[in-house]
């Protein structure tokens, strides 16, 4: 029964992962990827790793929400509802995908996963906490501080009120048709000190 549930969840994860490249919008792609990770998280819950499984689900919900917004912001595809092609650089992608699959498959075949069942009543959540804040604390904290520094840096770099002046100074939005006049609000020229006479 457990095997059946895990098999169904894995198939769902693969199918939604495949959908990421078949849907024609960044929002749909982001949330297809989220569903794929939700299925992986559910596998974790079934495999007696409830905290890691549920943490995967809520982390991915937040991450994919952020990703959907950023994708729409940077993809010049208003709202993400306009059809767009989700794949590019086919040859490079095929080689990279083949290599990644071979590497991961080799890792799965070479690894020696524990065969013993987790005894009922084992407090796996507490065990995980002791591991993370004990032997693995240096790795855990290093990764955490690095990620935090990256996020702060990204926010500072993308902030409009940056230390080097307004970020959109002198920028021109793309035209609605090729070669056409820039769309939307026209940015004021002269470094923001433009005066009307």
């Amino acid at each position, binding site marked *: 029964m457990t095997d059946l549930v895990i098999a169904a969840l894995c198939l769902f994860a693969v199918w939604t992962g495949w959908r990421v490249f078949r849907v024609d919008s960044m*929002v*749909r792609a982001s*949330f297809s990827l*989220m569903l794929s990770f939700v299925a992986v998280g559910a596998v974790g819950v079934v495999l007696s790793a*409830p*905290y890691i499984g*549920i*943490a995967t*689900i*809520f*982390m991915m*919900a*937040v991450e*994919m*929400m*952020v990703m*959907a*917004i950023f994708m729409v912001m940077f993809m010049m595809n208003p*709202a*993400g*509802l306009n059809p767009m092609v989700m794949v590019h650089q086919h040859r490079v992608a095929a080689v990279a995908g083949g290599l990644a699959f071979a590497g991961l498959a080799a890792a799965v075949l070479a690894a020696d996963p524990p065969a013993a069942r987790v005894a009922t009543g084992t*407090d*796996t*959540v*507490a065990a995980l906490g002791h591991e993370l804040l004990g032997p693995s604390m240096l790795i855990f904290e290093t990764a955490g501080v690095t990620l935090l520094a990256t996020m702060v840096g990204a926010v500072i770099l993308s902030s409009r009120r940056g230390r080097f002046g307004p970020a959109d100074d002198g920028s021109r939005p793309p035209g609605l048709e090729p070669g056409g006049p820039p769309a939307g609000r026209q940015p004021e020229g002269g470094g923001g000190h433009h005066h009307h006479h």
Partner: protein
Amino acid sequence: MIGALLLLAVAATLAAGTLLAAWLDRRLAGGGGIASLAADWLAGPVRTEAPDDMNRRLAPAWYLALAAAGLCVVPFAPGHAAIDSPAGIAIWGACEALTVVVVFLHGWSPNAPFPLIGAYRYAAIGLPAMLPSMFVLIAAALPAESLSLVAIVDSQRGAWNVLRQPLGLPLFAVAILSLTLRGPMDYADGADIAGGTSAEEAGPARALWQAARLAMLVSACAMAATLFLGGPLGPVLPGPVWLWLKTAGMMAAILALGARIARPPPARMLGLVWTVLLPLSFLHLLISGVIAL
């Protein structure tokens, strides 16, 4: 046997709580009440150009499902929850995170301006507003030394968390307002953008969306009662009755609060959330940690 009974309690609490929430909403917050839900149900649907039909139809159902899933981890009697998970509080956190996704999809899928504005505003405010509630959840788990809600209820036998963690309930109230699209945190469905994510919606879908908002209010208030008011703990009366009383009290308080606080412009609220609420939640975690030690 007891599992079936608990599932029945969850379903009954959600149904009765939603009706009570609709009535309280009408009395305390000037909402439409049960009659407006029924009128919505009977109206014809609205069509928009090239919508994402799957997400549009599923969004209200997902919202309701998240409310139900969240209520499933709430202990109805000391030691008994429908889903007694060692990571129960993380399940509620996942429900909160997925709610932001569902509200965003509800606004994105009709492919119309006002719903889309509501969706983006909600994603921008709802996500950071969720962060303080995550720290509140972590702080509530500290005295119990467990992520299980059953253990968190047990840890409050001496003193309720509302006394040990004074900042917790106010911070969680902000999360409830945000999760239920209400009052000062209603950036998704506000009247200033003609109903936001619900602007292009009528008929059963609209009724279900409004009912799901009320159902989420029931679940979030039951969670607040569990985290801070001892949940089913109390003298004389049986556990579930105490939980229902505390949940109803929280619902009335949240509805009254939501109706009395003005909604600032999104940009100012974003600043408030990041520069006031988030540091407050760090301070809350520190206070709760020191007291728990």
